[in-house]
């Protein structure tokens, strides 16, 4: 047969394909394609009716172009026309085009369905097959609606040809997958089961696939298939290799059908009928025996087909999990494969053994292969095989071999592929915790994890080690000593600094007796890492320092010195600055007793599911986990019940979650909280009241009034602290009191004074954008919260502390998603302080709090007023009282560009008056500030002095506060 144009194909198509292949560049290809598309379009649009052959050829060309990756937006109608052609090849091309290019919502679907209907009733088997293939390929809901009733009839009708039955069975399977509700079970189901007895093995093969899928959904309806499948399997397995003629594949009898039958049997428990059960066991034994026979052919196809059946048989044995002899035999068979020279078999043996390891009958047998598996981890050249080896080691791990397996995984970690490091870290962390007999080993293991693969150690892992150290008295001294030693390394991973800071802050006293780790040395060691760390770690270290002040009064002076330094007290980061300010203040005013209460040692964490396990589950899906571990999980959540009550279960291990906070601190805090509710009245209600532990700057009053209500200072990674608050559940509420100097807030960028849109705030997690418009004394602001991460923010709440509150935002913000809030603003009277936007959400278990000032300034309510020179000076004189004028002289911060200055004054809201000032280089503006109660006329004059790089700004308004405020705002701009 010729290589090109088989079956007398379409020469025009062949020419076109050669042309495309000869194109030297992508551009040339596109040019050629566009030319062809234009040609085809003109043919389709032409007056002359195209004959079927041409139509077929052009449709085929379009298909080719589409498959090259180009869009096709016409030709569908011509393809549909081909469907009703009497010529088979035209019909065939029509159906191919439809299968590849038509999506379900096409408006041509009714035409297509019509053509299919005709072909299905044509009684011509080739046409019927084409139609059935098309339904199976497209599988859309419309097609299911049209044919879900008809296809089963074709399938079970006595006079249907075998090939049509096969197509019908698989077509029905597809419809059942896409629209199960439309495929009604009925009288046909029993007849379908009997297709397993059909003479024609092709029909049996197709029917087995269908029955397996249906049986998974409704096992009861297809229960009778078990005995039929066993009988069929038994006949195949015991047949001589040539009995099945064309269904024998490289000397293996019907491997596909065998695999499918074994698969079908995995939908059911072991047969209850002893005879059937015995027959099945015989089959499985025969399959296992055959694996030991010498191969009948050297071809890889022979061994693949044979082993495909073998692996499926082993799957069934594992699924039944009831015949110890079979399980052990399966294990031994897989053990042989572990050392097979075929990489594929080693891969599959490792994979299959993972499931075998979870059976109590074969767990021990699997364990005997540990050396081989460890060897595979070290020597396999294919990463996907090594991955399987890691999985198997994890699955076979128990108390007896945990130390060896963890050690091997740790040493592998140093050279492991980057793609699987994180997973190995999680697995090691889980095994180390689960099988830890002495916790010193556990601590060592986790510190090694951080040392070897610090970047892959997620927060959950280091949270967990801290949780365990806190909860186990016996390991605390050892942990302190070990982290202290680990921190001596000149370069250590930031995660180690976090663990070290936390543990020394809690338990540093346990090793302080040794002069080599005296309090001062501990502090110096931690502080030597401080400057290399990120903000969250620094925040944690500051907390460690305040804990030190309590643990070691002798270093108080040194630490206060550090806290007092400009780099802390005036740190650009709000969080760090605030911690420094508050800790310093706390250390100065609180008595030793108070310090000891506030900085008390952490109470034990409640036991609950390891979040590491949860993380691994998310990564791998529940199927691949040690079933043992899964059971544990069930038990715990039943017994503990904590998981259920937590709004964000699993991720926050350290007890950063609100559940824990409420549990532990609520009793102590409740009375204090009610006090606070009085103080802040309306504001608190704007928040979802989860942890009502919030203290404002008035905390000092509470503090002296009733000391026993102060919650314990807790560890956390982030959060704005006001006064004394619990470390993890911080809600920042800015009270409506005028003195705000002590509250470091993220100020808005000053450009917002003259602009209404832009990005207000941005950190690693969140971006806040603004769009606003103002008119007289009213304004509307659109606030956009963008989640920059790929993870969902939970419990998202944003509120504005001002006269009116915001409607609550959607409590979750998806990764990458944006949330919008609308704020309506009314200026009641002139004001200085901008409203504050508080944002709070949970990200990866940590409560995040952000407070930013909204750029709502007095000048936003400016309406420009045009006036003549004479008019201006007349009013200027009227506003001559000393308190009405405010003047400031300041140095230019930006280059003194006239156009920019004009734009800024207009952006500020005033009308820019040309030709008013006798000196043309001066700027003069006028406008009215609108508030609900009054209107304040404003005049301004800006005199630049380019030589001195100075400005003089003069404001005159009818109200002194307004003059002052506008002058302050505007002078910031130049």
């Amino acid at each position: 047969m010729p290589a090109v144009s088989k079956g007398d194909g379409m020469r025009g198509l062949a020419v076109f394909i050669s042309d495309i292949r000869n194109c030297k560049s992508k551009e040339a290809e596109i040019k050629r394609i566009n030319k062809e598309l234009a040609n085809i379009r003109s043919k389709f649009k032409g007056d002359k009716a195209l004959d079927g052959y041409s139509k077929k050829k052009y449709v085929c060309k379009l298909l080719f172009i589409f498959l090259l990756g180009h869009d096709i937006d016409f030709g569908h109608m011509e393809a549909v026309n081909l469907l009703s052609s009497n010529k088979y090849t035209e019909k065939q091309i029509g159906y191919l085009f439809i299968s590849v290019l038509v999506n379900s919502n096409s408006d041509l679907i009714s035409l297509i369905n019509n053509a299919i209907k005709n072909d299905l009733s044509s009684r011509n088997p080739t046409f019927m097959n084409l139609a059935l293939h098309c339904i199976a390929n497209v599988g859309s809901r419309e097609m299911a609606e049209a044919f879900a009733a008809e296809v089963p009839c074709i399938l079970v009708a006595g006079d249907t040809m075998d090939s049509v039955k096969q197509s019908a069975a698989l077509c029905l399977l597809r419809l059942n997958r896409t629209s199960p509700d439309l495929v009604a079970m009925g009288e046909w189901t029993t007849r379908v089961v009997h297709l397993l007895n059909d003479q024609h093995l092709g029909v049996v093969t197709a029917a087995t696939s269908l029955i397996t899928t249906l049986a998974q959904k409704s096992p009861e309806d297809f229960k009778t298939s078990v005995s039929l499948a066993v009988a069929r399997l038994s006949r195949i397995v015991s047949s001589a290799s040539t009995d099945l003629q064309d269904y024998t594949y490289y000397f293996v009898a019907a491997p596909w059908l065998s695999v499918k039958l074994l698969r079908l049997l995995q939908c059911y428990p072991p047969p209850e009928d002893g005879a059937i059960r015995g027959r099945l066991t015989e089959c499985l034994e025969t399959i296992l025996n055959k694996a030991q026979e010498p191969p009948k052919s050297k071809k890889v196809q022979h061994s693949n087909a044979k082993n495909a059946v073998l692996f499926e048989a082993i799957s069934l044995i594992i699924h039944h999990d009831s015949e110890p002899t079979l399980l052990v035999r399966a294990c031994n068979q897989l053990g042989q494969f572990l050392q097979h020279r075929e990489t594929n078999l080693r891969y599959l043996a490792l994979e299959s053994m993972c499931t075998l390891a979870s059976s109590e009958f074969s767990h021990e047998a699997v364990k005997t292969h540990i050396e081989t598996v460890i060897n595979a981890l070290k020597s396999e050249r294919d990463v996907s095989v090594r991955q399987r080896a890691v999985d198997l080691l994890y699955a076979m791990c128990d108390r007896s071999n945990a130390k060896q397996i963890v050690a091997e995984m740790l040493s592998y970690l140093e050279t492991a592929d980057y793609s699987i490091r994180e997973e190995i870290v999680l697995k090691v962390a889980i095994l180390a915790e689960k099988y830890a007999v002495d916790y010193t080993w556990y601590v060592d293991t986790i510190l090694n994890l951080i040392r070897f693969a610090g970047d892959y150690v997620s927060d959950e892992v280091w949270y967990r080690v801290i949780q365990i150290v806190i909860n186990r008295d016996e390991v605390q001294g050892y942990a302190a000593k070990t982290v202290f030693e680990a921190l001596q390394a000149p370069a250590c991973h930031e995660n180690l600094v976090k663990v070290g800071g936390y543990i020394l802050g809690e338990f540093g006293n346990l090793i302080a007796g040794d002069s080599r780790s005296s309090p001062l040395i501990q502090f110096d060691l931690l502080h030597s890492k401080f400057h290399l760390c990120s903000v969250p770690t620094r925040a944690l270290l500051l907390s460690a320092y305040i804990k030190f002040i309590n643990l070691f009064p002798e270093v108080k002076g040194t630490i206060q010195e550090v806290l007092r330094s400009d780099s802390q007290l005036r740190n650009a980061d709000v969080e760090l600055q605030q911690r420094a300010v508050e800790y310093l203040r706390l250390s100065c005013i609180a008595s030793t007793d108070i310090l000891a209460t506030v900085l008390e040692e952490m109470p034990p964490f409640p036991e609950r599911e390891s979040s590491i396990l949860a993380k691994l589950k998310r990564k791998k899906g529940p199927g691949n986990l040690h079933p043992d571990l899964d059971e544990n999980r069930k038990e715990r959540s039943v017994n503990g019940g904590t998981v259920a009550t937590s709004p964000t279960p699993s991720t926050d291990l350290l007890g950063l979650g609100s559940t824990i906070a409420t549990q532990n601190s609520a009793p102590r805090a409740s009375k204090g909280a009610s006090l606070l509710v009085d103080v802040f009245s309306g504001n608190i209600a704007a928040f979802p009241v989860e942890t009502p532990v919030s203290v404002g700057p008035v905390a000092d009053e509470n503090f002296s009034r009733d000391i026993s209500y102060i919650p314990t200072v807790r560890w956390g990674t982030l959060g704005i602290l006001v006064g004394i608050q619990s470390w993890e559940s911080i809600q920042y509420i800015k009270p409506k009191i005028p003195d705000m100097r002590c509250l470091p807030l993220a100020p808005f960028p000053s450009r917002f004074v003259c602009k209404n849109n832009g990005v207000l705030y941005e950190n690693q997690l969140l971006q806040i954008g603004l769009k606003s418009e103002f008119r007289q004394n009213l304004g509307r602001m659109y606030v956009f919260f963008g989640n920059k991460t790929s993870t969902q923010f939970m419990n998202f709440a944003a509120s504005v502390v001002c006269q009116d509150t915001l409607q609550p935002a959607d409590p979750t913000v998806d990764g990458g998603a944006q949330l919008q809030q609308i704020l309506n603003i009314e200026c009641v009277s002139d004001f200085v302080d901008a409203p504050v936007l508080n944002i709070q959400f949970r990200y990866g278990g940590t409560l995040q709090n952000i407070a930013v000032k909204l750029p709502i300034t007095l000048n936003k309510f400016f309406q420009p007023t045009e006036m003549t020179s004479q008019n201006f000076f007349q009013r200027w004189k009227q506003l001559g009282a000393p308190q009405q004028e405010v003047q400031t002289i300041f140095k230019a911060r930006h280059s003194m560009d006239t156009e920019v200055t004009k734009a800024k004054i207009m952006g500020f809201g005033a009308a820019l008056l040309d030709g008013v000032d006798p000196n043309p280089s001066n700027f003069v503006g006028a406008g009215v500030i609108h508030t609900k109660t009054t209107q304040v006329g404003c005049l301004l004059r800006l005199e630049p002095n380019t030589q001195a790089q100075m400005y003089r700004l003069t404001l005159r308004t009818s109200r002194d506060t307004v003059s002052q405020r506008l002058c302050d705002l505007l002078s910031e701009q130049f």
Partner: protein
Amino acid sequence: MMRFMLLFSRQGKLRLQKWYTATAERDKKKMVRELMQVVLARKPKMSSFLEWRDLKIVYKRYASLYFCCAVEEQDNELITLEVIHRFVELLDKYFGSVCELDIIFNFEKAYFILDEFLIGGEIQDTSKKSVLKAIEQADLLQEEDESPRSVLEEMGLA
């Protein structure tokens, strides 16, 4: 069940794609690109199986062409490998020692053969004879249909 099958060349040119679940065009392109990259980077002695997203990938190279199938978690890898081989045998038998060019120039035939072999991601018939019989019947029909045409007419010049 099989989710999709791809044929691509060593140079990363896609020669055939068959999707057994509804997938948006954009996602298809992305998946094809990603998967080709993964498979082409693998060395000859490596296993024919790998985990990719939530799927099992089974692939095999025949001369310049990679045959690559994505199957689900519970599917049998080895039998999928033989699905590929049987498909290659069918192509080979039909075209007579098939090469990449046959599949390029007769792509529609390759799709027809695949449709006779697999439907909805499940194997329809494993007998080589049955599948080829179906295809050859179609070719016979085709030959009866067609009257000879001049070359000029074919090229659209008539």
